């Protein structure tokens, strides 16, 4: 089963978590990135994620396979949304199961950092400022990312 998935619509967490459960998994660490109502001082009205889908799925799988090789974990999974998202919607979910919490936390953090740095997905934000700032693609080399 693929460990990384792009989702065009909101997705449920319980089946993702259920997959991580095992008698050897004493620790499960989860990260959820959600659409905030502000970014870099601007009020965000909503956003859209665009992906180079074929390459994003390949690179996402590579990140998760590397995590499984690099950390003492049992399994890991990640789902990233594509398309239009409203404030509060989940943009990305990462879950890691491990025998011990050190590896679970470290791998979960590493995976979200690598996904953000490597997987070809782009965020397009619409703003709700009085000033009417134009919608914009986020390309972090022009504007250093504030982080999720």
């Amino acid at each position: 089963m693929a460990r990384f998935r792009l989702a065009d619509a909101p997705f449920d967490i319980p089946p993702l978590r259920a997959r991580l459960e095992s008698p050897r998994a004493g620790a499960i660490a989860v990260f959820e990135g959600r659409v905030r109502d502000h970014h870099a001082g601007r009020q965000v009205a909503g956003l859209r994620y665009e992906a180079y889908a074929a390459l994003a799925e390949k690179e996402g799988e590579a990140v998760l396979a590397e995590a499984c090789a690099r950390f003492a974990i049992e399994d890991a999974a990640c789902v990233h949304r594509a398309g239009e998202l409203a404030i509060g919607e989940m943009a990305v979910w990462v879950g890691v199961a491990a025998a011990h919490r050190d590896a679970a936390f470290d791998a979960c953090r590493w995976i979200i950092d690598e996904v953000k740095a490597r997987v070809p997905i782009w965020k397009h934000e619409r703003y709700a400022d009085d000033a009417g700032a134009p919608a914009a693609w986020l390309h972090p080399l022009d504007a250093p990312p504030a982080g999720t």
Partner: protein
Amino acid sequence: MTVTVLYFAALRDAAGCASEQLATPADLSTLYAGLRARHGFSFEARSLRVAVDGEFRDWSHALADGAEVAFIPPVSGG
């Protein structure tokens, strides 16, 4: 030699299309320099990664006829 170039995000907005077919030199850097001049892309080549046929490649990767090329602007998922 003909290749298909895919555009995403700000590059697609600047190009005004999601992809185009081009007769091209075999050299990815020359290809990008020409497209940058034509479409007014703001990114220097060193800010981009490049993918060929759905795999990340070096800028020195040799293009084959019919290749699908994507210039990958800085990503912002998560």
